[in-house]
């Protein structure tokens, strides 16, 4: 190892209008190391990486690559400087093969064939070297998310990147896939590649990085050796105050059955059955967590219960059967049955982004007579209500006249939660409550959900964050391919067992070798893909 850093940023500053996104930031990343950048949403991580990848130009500051001062006016320059980037949202051509995607934009000569042949050879080499195995002739749309991500990494490596930037890479992966990714990163590190990992997950930082920088409000608050810090310390550096990382909750005291579901089935518009006959019960004072990799029917389950999709089967709410199709199965009817719904996608469903916060605080409950004044709406009363809700849920800024899109993800989520929780529902459906939400807000949101439970509500929680399922749920159901693979007690299970179930494997937990799991996982996802594609 040399003393020359692979990347060195000196005094980088960038402002968007009055907003200072990056303030005088300096980092040194040594070659052959993994450097984590952690921070809340809007802390300036993505801006910094965009500057490094040539999407933005810094107002001030200098970039050195391997000791050489480098100008990066665009992404082509970044690639020439040996920088590769794996985005959160993949930039792959869905109906191209892996090979075609890898050489796209890096073709040599006018003929495609020699490029393809060369790429095939390189790909095989890299697969062996880094455990980056992907079928070069598979179409992207048939690949699992984890494999698509590998293609992105391959693309970068094929362009001879020595520095790899990964933006929130595990957000879409199963625990097994995430684990595999980390092994790949580990291999890359031993080959001397430099990796920058952007994440908000403390566990990942602790697991894989050598050094870590914490960003808060555009500034770099600390850079430390991972071995010399703790998750608690990092969380405090990120948020600026002490944060409780575990959910503090008393044991559940389940009461009467609120929701009982039997043989529930949902078929989508393409005629594919998404929920394949599932059944469960939730009782008062209980949180049932549904774990699973995204796309295994959890969303459809939430939507049919929330009155957005129709389905078949038998669903009873406090003993009374509720309609699963027809006019009486819409969201309005569900709300009348005291079912509140915090949808998975708050921007598409839970909120009208163009509406102000006050308009959003009654969304779905807007036909309540208490918001009416003659033929008109009582806007003043709604604004007042919104002010109260925003205060109680610590929505920032507490300005009800601001459009929803002007709030950060966490504050948007709080607006939705405030609306749904303050209805005091008997049943709360809550999907991905902390997706894209800052650590500080996560703590608050978890507390609110637990508080509602303690008041006697039944709660159905869907999340792809296994940590969240583990820490919030009183019982866990794992969904795979539209079915419930099994129920587990969070106190008596672990991530590995759940991970197996999430991959559709019922085996002996603890004995499974991760490589075997991974192979089975690939097989299963290929099956699912084949079924979808048929």
């Amino acid at each position, binding site marked *: 190892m040399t003393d020359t850093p692979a990347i060195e940023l000196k005094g980088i500053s960038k402002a968007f209008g009055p907003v200072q996104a990056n303030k005088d930031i300096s980092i040194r990343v040594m070659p052959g190391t993994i450097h984590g950048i952690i921070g809340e949403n809007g802390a300036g991580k993505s801006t910094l990486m965009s500057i490094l990848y040539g999407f933005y130009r810094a107002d001030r500051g200098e970039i050195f690559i391997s000791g050489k001062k480098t100008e990066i006016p665009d992404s082509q320059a970044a690639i020439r400087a040996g920088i590769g980037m794996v985005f959160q949202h993949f930039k792959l051509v869905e109906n191209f093969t892996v090979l075609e995607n890898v050489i796209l934009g890096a073709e040599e000569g006018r003929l495609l064939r020699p490029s393809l042949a060369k790429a095939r050879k390189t790909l095989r080499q890299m697969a062996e070297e880094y455990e980056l195995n992907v079928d070069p002739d598979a179409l992207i749309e048939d690949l699992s998310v984890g494999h698509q991500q590998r293609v992105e990494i391959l693309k970068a490596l094929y362009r001879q990147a020595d520095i790899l930037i990964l933006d929130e890479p595990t957000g879409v992966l199963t625990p097994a896939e995430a684990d595999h990714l980390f092994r790949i990163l580990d291999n890359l590190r031993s080959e001397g590649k430099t990796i920058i990992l952007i994440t908000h997950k403390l566990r990942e930082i602790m697991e894989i990085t050598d050094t870590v920088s914490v960003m808060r409000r555009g500034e770099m608050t600390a850079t430390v050796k991972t071995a010399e810090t703790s998750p608690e310390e990092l969380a405090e550096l990120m948020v600026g105050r002490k944060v409780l990382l575990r959910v503090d909750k008393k044991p559940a005291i389940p009461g009467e059955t609120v929701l009982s579901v039997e043989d529930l089935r949902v078929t989508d518009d393409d005629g594919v059955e998404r929920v394949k006959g599932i059944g469960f019960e939730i009782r008062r004072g209980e949180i049932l967590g549904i774990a699973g990799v995204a796309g295994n029917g959890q969303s459809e389950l939430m939507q049919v219960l929330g009155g957005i999709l129709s389905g078949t089967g038998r669903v009873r709410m406090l003993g009374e059967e509720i309609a699963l199709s027809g006019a009486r199965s819409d*969201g309005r009817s569900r709300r009348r049955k005291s079912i509140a719904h915090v949808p998975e996608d708050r921007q*598409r469903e839970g909120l009208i982004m163009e509406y102000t916060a006050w308009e959003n605080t009654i969304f779905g409950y807007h036909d309540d007579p208490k918001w009416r004044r003659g033929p008109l709406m009582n806007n003043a009363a709604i604004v007042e209500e919104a002010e109260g809700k925003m205060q109680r849920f610590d929505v920032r800024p507490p300005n009800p006249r601001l459009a929803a899109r002007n709030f950060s993800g966490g504050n948007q989520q709080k607006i939705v939660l405030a609306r749904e929780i303050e209805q005091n529902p008997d049943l709360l459906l809550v999907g991905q409550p902390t997706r894209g939400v800052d650590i500080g807000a996560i703590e608050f949101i978890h507390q609110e959900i637990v508080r509602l439970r303690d008041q006697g509500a039944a709660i159905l929680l869907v999340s792809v964050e296994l940590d969240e399922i583990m820490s919030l749920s009183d019982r866990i159901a794992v969904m795979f391919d539209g079915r419930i693979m099994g129920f587990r007690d969070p106190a008596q299970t672990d991530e590995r067992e759940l991970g197996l179930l999430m991959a559709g494997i019922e085996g002996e937990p603890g004995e499974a070798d991760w490589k075997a799991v991974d192979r089975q996982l690939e097989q299963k996802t290929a099956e699912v893909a084949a079924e979808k594609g048929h």
Partner: protein
Amino acid sequence: MDRMPAWADVVLIPLISLLLAAILSALVILAIGENPVEAFALMWNGTVMKSSGWGYMLYYATNFIFTGLAVSVAFHARLFNIGGEGQATLGGLGVALACLYIPWPHWSLAIIGSCIGAAAFGAAWAFLPAILQAKRGSHIVITTIMFNFIAAALLNYLLVGVMKPVGSMDTATAKFPEPTHLPTFRDMFSTAETIMFRGAPANVTFFVALLACLAVWLLLWRTRLGYEIRAQGFSESGARYAGISPTWIIVVTMLISGGLAGMMAVNTTQGEAERLILNMTEGAGFIGIAVALMGRNHPFGVLLAALLFGFLYQGGAVLALWTSIPRELIVVIQALVILFTGALDNMVRIPLERVFMAMRKREA
């Protein structure tokens, strides 16, 4: 983060667009050998400087307010109602039936009847495209356009045969009876010694149009239905989550939109022609789209944009009367304004946003 202050969006962009359109129009006039300054002075003197000019301007504006509101209301539910022509045509039929076959004692009652007739017939004409969109997914742009043709053919059939007085060459119904005639601005504002708004067709319907602006504003921003219409327009998935029935919103929004378009006929048919004539919509249904675009789909904006288009129409007539600028070029000038204010919005917006960003940076 908003890129520029709201006042710039509402005031500056339309003004700059207008200015650009004016410059281009001036070049067009110059190219055919006329004097643009004189032409503009003529337009100005023939509209704003004369009460009869105002009378015409407000008459045209009344039409555009109704059709502009119709397009705006539909647009808030993200429905593009191109059928204003057809709905106004049917509205005319409603007005004619109300005026011809009901013996009204006084115009004040007649106008209520004809407004209801116009709105009901216009709404009915919008109902079928709406239900086809809601239930079958037939695109409302296509169906409303087709319904324009059907409406034209229907009116033609009625006015060439069924409703035309026997022996008349004119493709029109009989003249409406005296008590249904609406007071014009001349009747309302002239005093014994001075006659105002002489010969101009502006009539009491203008005030109905102003009321309609207010009603649409209340509907969209102060009622539950308006709340649901806008929610559906912003996010269909969001509306579904909230339990808002898309079918209901599509149908009811189109009924309101069609009704508004239909009410335009009260102005042209009862207010001006005092009989139902074949060409009564005069393209106002289409101009309504431009008016709504320029008015940013806000009733107040629609009012202002309608006044501007009223000015252009009356100004165009003055040009046609006193210059040798051909009719086609007057249409070109009007089209330039539509193009700049409606379609080429971003051409002005983006550079202007840059200017504001730069200014802000300097301050920061």
